[in-house]
């Protein structure tokens, strides 16, 4: 919108920062506050800011609902495949210890990959929800 000059410029500055912050939270789950779920929420917040300021149609052109559905499913797939890999390596479902040569290394790897799946699913699902909400509001008018 031509009149939203200030919001547009400030949002352009902030969106990459929010995205990077989300990734920081994603990967530092073991050391500080955070983890996959929180990171997904923050990522979605950044994208929702884009929706709020540039309008749903513009955001949708860049990340469509179809892509979101696919990525959301991928997140679940990543989660499940870690579990299945553990079973193939002779452990139980989601038994991290058998994923790598040492149990600690396995836990490390397992948690990072699992959290990635969680983050991906949460971020995409939240954005998809916003798209669908807006669609609903529009069709009910």
């Amino acid at each position: 919108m031509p009149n939203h000059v200030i919001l547009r410029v400030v949002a352009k500055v902030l969106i990459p920062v929010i995205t990077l912050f989300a990734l920081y939270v994603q990967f530092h789950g073991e050391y500080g506050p955070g983890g996959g779920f929180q990171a997904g929420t923050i990522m979605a917040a950044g994208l929702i800011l884009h929706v709020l300021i540039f309008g749903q149609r513009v955001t949708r052109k860049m990340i469509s609902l179809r892509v979101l559905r696919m990525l959301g499913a991928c997140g679940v797939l990543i989660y499940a495949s870690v579990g299945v890999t553990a079973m193939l390596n002779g452990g139980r479902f989601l038994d991290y210890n058998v994923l790598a040569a040492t149990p600690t290394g396995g836990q490390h790897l397992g948690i990072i990959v699992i959290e990635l799946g969680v983050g991906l699913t949460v971020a995409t699902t939240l954005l998809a929800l916003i798209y669908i909400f807006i669609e609903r509001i529009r069709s009910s008018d």
Partner: protein
Amino acid sequence: MMLVAAAVAVLAAMALALARSLMGPTVFDKILAVNSFGTKTVLLIALLGAIAGRADYLDVALLYALINFIATVALMKYAEYGGMEANDEGEG
């Protein structure tokens, strides 16, 4: 001691903002008060970090500073247009 006194001051300021958000009278007064409340929350979290002596809290404060802004923009859009996507008609 000094930090606790500062925390009390922030809480007092938060109470004042909260009173304004309850009193209104217009929806914009309420959003303004909530936004101001959010800024004070950021300070309070940072202060808690200093009291606990842990820098972890600052991540939370940092995040809150960013998210508080998004919340205000969303609320203000809702108040202005009664919807989230009314600016879709513009050139974006």
